[in-house]
């Protein structure tokens, strides 16, 4: 069955587990060429084999990168450029910034950033910057960043935005998901002038049955998350909502950035603050060293 997504090239981060893996599987079934990203060589290889078994003609590929590090995000972008160049005209139809993590104890990356801030927020910001020329080279392109309804429980703490001094894992997580929406809104504003055929979305997958809260967390946290995920929807269902946004059949609406299950939604008031979005953008450029980038 040929669909709008057949033959499209789409990068999905965090494609070795949960929502990202389910999205990669469904896209592969529909004939899209998926480039998955994961942090573990073994899990990447396993996922690649799984996808290839579903639809060998789709020629799925995987890259390994620790998205907690900007140096790795940059290296990854180079690897993706290389992969695309080897296959023909270098263009990218979609980017799904899905990789996400929950860390109970404050952990700083080698580059000194709080890990959730680095993986859940800065990595989407930087990878989007790095891949934008490839996205802009496609006739139309979509950027989907996976956020969460939990963004509504917090606001940005500007004085200590990574919560280093008063760390709380859940609060830090929620802040990254709020930042993802603000980033998407500001990105769309900037794309309108520079590349109007590229459109960005922030997606809330809903509560999904995945192991995200059970990777390296204390036993109690694992127990609590098990109760939560038991009530969640299957990853394949969450994937549908993301795929709907990648499909050019769905028309983006101006000023609508936040979506759930393929339907536009109002994010929290904080997530609609245009001044905060601009301030966050400037701060992120400083953190990622993208001040001279194409979107500045």
């Amino acid at each position, binding site marked *: 069955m040929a669909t709008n997504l057949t033959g499209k090239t789409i990068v999905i981060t965090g494609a070795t587990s949960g929502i990202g893996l389910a999205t990669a599987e469904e896209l592969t079934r529909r004939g899209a060429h998926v480039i998955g990203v994961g942090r573990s060589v073994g899990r990447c290889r396993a996922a690649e084999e799984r996808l290839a078994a579903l639809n060998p003609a789709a020629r799925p590929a995987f890259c390994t990168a620790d998205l907690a590090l*900007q*140096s790795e995000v940059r290296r990854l972008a180079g690897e993706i450029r290389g992969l695309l160049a080897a296959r023909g005209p270098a263009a990218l139809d979609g980017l799904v910034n899905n990789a996400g993590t929950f860390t109970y104890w404050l952990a*700083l990356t080698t580059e*000194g950033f709080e890990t959730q801030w680095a993986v859940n927020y800065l990595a989407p910001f930087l990878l989007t910057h790095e891949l934008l020329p490839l996205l802009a080279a496609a006739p139309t392109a979509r950027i989907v960043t996976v956020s969460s309804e939990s963004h509504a429980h917090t606001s940005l703490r500007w004085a200590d935005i990574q919560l*280093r001094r008063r*760390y709380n894992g859940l609060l830090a997580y929620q802040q990254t998901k709020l930042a993802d929406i603000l980033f998407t809104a500001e990105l769309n504003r900037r794309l309108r002038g520079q590349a109007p055929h590229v459109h960005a979305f922030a997606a809330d997958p809903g509560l999904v049955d995945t192991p995200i809260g059970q990777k390296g967390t204390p036993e109690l946290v694992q127990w609590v998350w098990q109760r939560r995920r038991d009530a969640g929807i299957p990853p394949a269902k969450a994937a549908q909502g993301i795929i709907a946004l990648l499909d050019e059949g769905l028309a983006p609406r101006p000023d609508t950035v936040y979506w759930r299950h393929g339907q536009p939604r109002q994010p929290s008031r904080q997530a609609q603050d245009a001044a905060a979005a601009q301030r966050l953008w400037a701060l992120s450029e400083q953190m990622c060293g993208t001040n001279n980038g194409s979107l500045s």
Partner: protein
Amino acid sequence: MKSYVLITGATGGLGKAFAVECASRGWPLYLTDLRPEPLELLAGALHRTYGVPVRWRACDLTDAGQRTALCEALRSEQARFGGLINVAGGDHEGLFCEQTSAQLRSIVRLNIEATIEMTHALLRLRDASETFRIVNVASLAAFYPMPYKATYAASKRFLLDFSLALRQELAGQGVTVTALCPAGLPTTPACIAAIEAQGVMGQLTTQNTGAAAAGTLDAALAGKAVYIPGLLNRLLRALGGLVPPTVVAWFIGRRWGAARRDLGNPAESSILVPEASPA
């Protein structure tokens, strides 16, 4: 702080927390640790995020020759210093008799010798126009004789006494010395496993590194002698002071013996556990 602050062990869990906290306060940094790659990444990110100058140099502080070379380089670079944070330190897992003499020696060299020498060298390179702040990372272990960590805890005791004495000796000369005495910090998977093996007590006594670093710098700027992160830890320390050391050693031996069994005897592995094992 106008002049450089030197941080040893700067790419470890607590060292990074100090580096980020200093940079966020706008302080120029000089970072050192074992390997150049992480130093370069951290220095680059701190510079672009906070706009402060960040220099770095790799050095194995257990090696006397390399320490001398580092101090020579600092002198020839003509950097002036406003502070020194001695974070580099460590322990080797294992019972005393299971540790090799090389391992025991490296504990003493890193925790004691390196701290003395860096302190001595930096005091000669200080910027006389501002108060010089020294922070020595000891541990709550400094207050107690600790079975299973005898050498480590005693080396931390050395740092505590050294800091207190030096602070007095240099009082009135524009130098403050602060000893940081944290309980276990969740910096590495091994440290986190040890904290979690202590159950609720581990959770309650554990402070995040970011809060510990910020609190320590505030304490240093206020000229405090000792800083213990966490109210409960301060309370436990106060109570611990009332009990004879032999009783404390017996009690710790019992609790730790149990925790070690829960962990499936980490003595089997012999990694150099970085700073701040649970105390």
